[in-house]
């Protein structure tokens, strides 16, 4: 354990070490002028230092009210949960859409197959051979020559 008077090691843990040191009330009063005389060139370390200072001040004078963290944390958790649920719902909806699409496609296929079957029935029924089998026997093969009605008598026509 180091005290404030000890030479400060030039390590990256400089401020952390300082915090630990300054947490003790006796050392805090002696350590205060240090930051003024030796300003830390790295701004990121400044935050830790100010905090420490404020804590020390709060300990010495009237306690300052800390901003409550809970709502912020709850907000973040809420947002994350919301996002997660939305993503889940989206996924489920899409999956449901896929199932629905598959069902609809299956239904379309079946209707198309029914239509194809009926087309086939029509096609088969309209074939000359099928018509022949359904036609009355005296009309199956009428080989009489064609007859025409003319408005005036014409040689060679009936």
């Amino acid at each position, binding site marked *: 354990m180091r005290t404030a008077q000890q030479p400060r090691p030039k390590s990256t843990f400089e401020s952390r070490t300082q915090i630990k040191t300054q947490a003790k009330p006796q050392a805090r009063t002696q350590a205060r002028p240090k930051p003024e005389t030796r300003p830390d060139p790295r701004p990121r370390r400044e935050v830790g230092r100010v905090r420490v200072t404020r804590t020390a001040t709060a300990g010495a004078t009237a306690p300052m009210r800390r901003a409550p963290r809970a709502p912020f944390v709850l907000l973040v958790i809420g947002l994350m949960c919301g996002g997660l649920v939305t993503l889940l719902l989206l996924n489920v909806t899409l999956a449901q859409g896929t199932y629905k699409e598959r069902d609809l496609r299956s239904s379309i296929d079946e209707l198309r197959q029914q239509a*194809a079957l009926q087309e086939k029935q029509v096609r088969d029924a309209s*074939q000359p051979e099928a018509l022949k089998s359904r036609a009355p026997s005296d009309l199956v093969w009428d080989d009489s*020559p064609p007859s025409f009605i003319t408005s005036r008598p014409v040689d060679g026509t009936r």
Partner: protein
Amino acid sequence: MLRLSDPGRRLNAGLVVMAFVLSLLAGRLVQLQGLDSKVLQAKAADRREQSEKLPARRGSITDIAGHELAVTVEAREIYLDPKVVEPAKRDLVATTLATELNRSKEEIAAKLAKTTSRYAVVARDVDPLHAKKIMSFGFRGVGAKRTYYREYPGGRLAGGIVGFVGVDGYGLAGMESAFNKVLAGRDGEQSFETGGEGQRIPMTRSTRQEPVPGRDVRLTIDRDIQWAAQEAIAEQVKASRARSGSVIVIDVPTGRIVAMANAPEVDLTHWQDSPPGDRRNRAVSEVFEPGSTNKVITAAAAIESGTVRSDTVFRVPDSIQCADRRLKDAHPHPPESLTFAGIIAESSNVGTIMAAERISSQRLYDMFRAFGFGARSGVGLPGEEAGLLPGWQGWSGSQRCTIAYGQGISVTALQIASVYQTIANGGVRVTPTIVAGTTDGHGRFVPAPAPKRTRVISERTAREISLMLEAAVGHDGTGTEAAIPGYRVAGKTGTAMRYDQECGGYCGYTATFVGFTPADKPRLMALAVIQDPKKGHYGGTVAAPVFRNVMTFALKTRKIPPTGTKTPDVVLRAHR
């Protein structure tokens, strides 16, 4: 011995065990995620990814009115995976499939017994709704694969023209073969990831290359006239106990083939059951000696040369010496004074030889060539023969005479039909066509290019021959059986000796009748040819009735009225 009562030691031991277990897990993790990751990923993808070929729908072949002669319909292939079928249910599966698919139970049971096989086809071309019913039984190891089935609704209708496809859907004969590239289209492919039940997994990788459907081919055939032609020729072939027969009907002004029927005709639905000889289109693939129907070409050459007219009189005996052979008429008769029209009307071989003697062999040969003999007609039907027309330099003494009346050369039925189309069309030969057009990629109809038109003989010669042919169907002609009351019919009978490879010489006859109607303004021409009839063999008695029946039907179907004109008198005999 290790004493574990000391908590520190216990902790250390636990730590070692945990470290060991964790190191095993870590090792496995490195193996799965690092070393084998690619192999495992590929295996997982293989299980998820479904890749399938999307077969292109083959185009239809239709008649001129759009009636389908060949159409592709969706079907299912029912297959078995014998390894998956539960042994206890094999009998039930075999019984059910046998009943549903009209197959023998033993056949299916035998397929089920081959448990080393993973794919055994039970039935092809099953209707999708029927396949669905089979799948609803829920048998494990029974599946239905989507396929296409080529359907020929007419069965034998236009069988020789349409042709058929093999099991793989590739055209093997007829238009199916000739237009295979147009009809086939291009298959597509798709791959996607599926779940256990075959449903697509959303938001996963999928690729799809759409199939390009085949294009439709529209023929010039009229389905109804085709059917009538098939009925008529089949009936006459049966009645005359002939070997085979063909009928061709052509639209004279356009050269479009309206019907092309053969007997026996291949049943396209069961083409495998037909003998190979019956699967072809005889009208273009069978060559024969044309006989008297060929006399019009001799007549055309003689009239065009200016040495003979229709009223030129010949003193015609019933036989004539030609080089080393004595050639005769069909019936013995005393010498007669016949006009050239009379020679054609009564189909005198001797008279035709006498007329042919007035022109050179080369002129006669050139006329044969101009009418299309010795070359394919240009119709584009597969299996078409060019016939046999020896060069005039090689004609022997008697061959020059026999060729004049149609013996010693070989032609196809379509080649003769084309000759009469030329005469009926005022001397202009229109290359016979059978394809009216195809559809393009958007389903729009694209007509086939206009056929080639060639003037072969003058209009005057054509008219003169037409009158001679009309006389041939008249009272004194040989083709009275072809007359259609109310219509002017021009035509020619043909009775040729038939060369038969089986007997190694001339055995039997080829009976032919070919003509057109109305004679003064021809709209349709028809040809009937019957090979080797046993009951009667004259073209005027065997083939002419077929011509009359088919032409009558075609006139009624096409609603072609008579022209109302009277047949001019043609002098057939001169009284000297």
